[in-house]
């Protein structure tokens, strides 16, 4: 026996035509409630006006603050529809039905009234079951099951949509394990039951049933659909892949990078690579690290690399130059503002250490510390990020040996430093020893720099680092 209960609850207002043959949307203007009949061959859905239910505390009006759906979207029962605010309380309004949103009655910042329609939802009744009816063998269900009240007890709880799905697939609801609240049977439970029976991987449903690890959407619903957290139960479930491609516009910083990199690749690059034996430098740094720490500074290898580069640039100033747009003039920059590529959350940023030519290794270390802490806090200023003349990229901290760095305009050269590896090498006496080897990959603008210049600069830089004491001779 099926129970038909016409709701007397004022918050549900069904509009439905008595006649079922030709179902025209214009017929949905009847405002009086009808006894619902089991229908068949109804091709269109019925529009239900979902009213704003009581908020509590005697509140009669609220402000609509955010819509989580728009007209034309499909919703499932319990999906978030919108966020409203009333007197310091933020309320998430969730859908009572499965269906398609046909009309939003308010815009953002409008005042919405309790008891008045909030949205119109078109409920799909083409499968021949009215949203109110009971189907499948279960104890008689009270109509209130469809509203927000909770049923305690041993009744099999399932929404009409779920019951329909079960019926279509000849499933006994009593055999399905409910994972929803109060052991309610959810759509996923039916699907899983089916999958177990047939051993098939089910096609992904329009709304992803499997909770993805990180669901990134523009507007985040406050109440996700699958609310029940299950205890770890060792049941194998076929995982249906419901991932979708995601397209985003290229904006902001990324847009600027696109422009810069496109300009960069117009520069004819050539590469030059070498390996540096840092054994002595490693030892030197070990000795100097505690001294720097006493002064409150973290000493890495970079200050040495940067200073050595500056010493090299004094001998080969063309590497610290800039070519104008028309390739008519070369400007030799007086300051060695050496950029240090940094990886941040945003991506690649290149702050620079100004005037390295007059800085000591310690000065450089201090400045690097400052830039690094500002960089990780996302607080670098424009002056830190402009005016660079030469760049070093220590990609080795992440990994890699050789690289093919891209010159950052308006500069003409760049060096990428690989990771320091302990490798066997031969010394002057032909003996094998443990060497600390790092690879360097230079790229330079072949329009004004030739291979020989790059090679000589690299050799000089290498000699300073392989024999740090020699830096002392040339330090200014």
């Amino acid at each position: 026996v099926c129970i038909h209960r016409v709701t007397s609850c004022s918050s549900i207002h069904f509009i439905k035509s008595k006649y079922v043959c030709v179902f025209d949307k214009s017929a949905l203007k009847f405002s009086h409630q009808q006894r619902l009949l089991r229908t068949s061959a109804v091709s269109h859905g019925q529009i239900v006006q979902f009213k704003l239910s009581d908020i509590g505390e005697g509140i009669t009006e609220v402000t609509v603050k955010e819509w989580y759906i728009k007209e034309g979207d499909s919703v499932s029962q319990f999906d978030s529809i919108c966020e409203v605010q009333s007197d310091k309380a933020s309320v998430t309004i969730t859908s009572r039905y499965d269906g398609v949103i046909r009309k939003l009655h308010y815009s953002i910042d409008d005042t919405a009234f309790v008891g008045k329609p909030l949205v119109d939802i078109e409920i799909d009744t083409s499968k021949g079951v009215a949203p109110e009816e009971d189907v499948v063998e279960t104890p008689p269900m009270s109509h209130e099951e469809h509203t927000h009240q909770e049923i305690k007890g041993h009744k099999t709880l399932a929404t009409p949509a779920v019951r329909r799905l079960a019926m279509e697939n000849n499933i006994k609801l009593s055999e399905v394990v409910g994972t929803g609240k109060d052991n309610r049977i959810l759509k996923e439970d039916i699907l899983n039951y089916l999958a177990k029976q047939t051993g098939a991987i089910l096609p992904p449903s329009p709304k992803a049933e499997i909770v993805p690890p990180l669901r990134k959407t523009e507007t985040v619903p406050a109440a996700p659909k699958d609310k029940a957290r299950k205890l770890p139960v060792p049941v194998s479930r076929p995982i249906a892949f419901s991932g979708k491609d995601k397209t985003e516009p290229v904006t902001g910083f990324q847009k600027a990078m696109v422009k810069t990199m496109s300009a960069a690749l117009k520069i004819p690059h050539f590469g030059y690579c070498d390996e540096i034996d840092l054994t002595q430098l490693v030892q030197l740094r070990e000795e100097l690290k505690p001294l720097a720490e006493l002064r409150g500074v973290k000493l890495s290898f970079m200050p040495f690399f940067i200073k050595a580069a500056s010493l090299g640039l004094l001998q080969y100033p063309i590497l610290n130059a800039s070519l104008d747009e028309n390739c008519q003039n070369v400007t030799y920059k007086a300051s060695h503002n050496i950029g240090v590529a940094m990886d941040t959350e945003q991506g690649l940023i290149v702050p620079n250490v100004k005037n390295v030519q007059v800085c000591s290794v310690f000065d450089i270390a201090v400045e690097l510390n400052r830039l690094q802490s500002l960089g990780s806090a996302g607080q670098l200023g424009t002056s830190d990020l402009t005016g660079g003349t030469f760049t070093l990229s220590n990609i080795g901290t992440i990994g890699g040996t050789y690289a093919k760095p891209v010159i950052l305009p308006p500069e003409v050269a760049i060096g990428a430093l690989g990771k320091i590896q302990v490798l066997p090498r031969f010394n002057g006496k032909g003996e094998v020893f443990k060497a600390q080897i790092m690879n360097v990959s230079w790229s330079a603008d072949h329009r004004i720099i030739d291979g020989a210049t790059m090679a000589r600069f690299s050799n000089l830089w290498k000699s300073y680092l392989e024999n740090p004491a020699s830096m002392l001779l040339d330090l200014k």
Partner: protein
Amino acid sequence: MVLQSLKSCLWLSCILRTPKACFWSTASGGLIIQSVSNDVYQNLAVEDWIHDHMDLEKQQVLFLWRNSPAVVIGRHQNPWQECNLRLLRQKNIKLARRRSGGGTVYHDLGNINLTFFTTRKKYERMENLKLVVKALKALRPQLDVHVTDRYDILLDRQYKISGTAAKLGRTSAYHHCTLLCNADKFVLSSVLKSPYKGLKSNATPSVPASVKNLFEEDPSLTSEMLLDAIAKEYATQHQIDHHITVINPADETLLPGISHKTKELQTWEWVYGKTPKFSVSTCLNMAYKDSVLDVKVNMDVKHGRIEVCNIDLPEQWLPPGLYSELVKSLTGSKFCPNEITTLVTTLLRVCPQDNELHSRWSLLCENMIMLM
């Protein structure tokens, strides 16, 4: 205060919405929990978790928490309007957006937070605040504290010591409030003052109020004493044992899904991107060489991103191509100083290498960034 560790499956099964036979739930009508963490995001995530996953029908929950310095804005507020973001960044004070409504508050360890979790039907803010007042009076009968009809708690009829906000979901609800014990009022007033001019928005504005710490009224009071007093009163009213269960918001086995919630609360998209649409209409006074330029700027910001941008520069001050490049790049970009700084400095690389041009560009961009 009895501390209990909660690593048993049984506890989980009691509180989850899949009712299983449980020896706890029928006994108590309430549960008092306290967070070990002072991280505002972790604690807000616990609130979300309880709201989404706990069955509050059989037992209500009181959650006690404190945060290291942070500014917490309401769900529908505009952080630029509410606080001094520059100062926050400088002082490394966190900014969080909570899911409940209401206004902006400053948290530090001298402020305690109380969250009352109930079913949607049992949502009753007045009752909760009266409970707090009762607890305070039981602790120090001479305290002149009362609840206003705006759900504030006032000390000496004058000073606000507690503000309230609430979140209602489909089946559950929570009401949380602050309580000033010994917070840094100096920092509080400086961070809650916005320096940004020309903002127009429909975001919920905060209502500023004079505040006072309970500690100022009675120096013998500490946060711990207040927490304990409130827990005691809650226990009495709910007829449960006065013991506080300690939870660790980083415990994923206890609170499955909590780290995802914590991460989400920290994303730029949530903290800034949820700001209701607003516009900035202001005038930059740029000192350039020997004169001062008045540059009108109009921007529309939606989802925290610049939707429309107009900068009224004197003709030819910047080459037109460069100006349109700047506007094009700003459009769609986050209204965020870091994003804009990296954007404009990167763009500068492909500009003609002219010192005059560079200094004008830098001047304009720095002034624009000050608006954020």
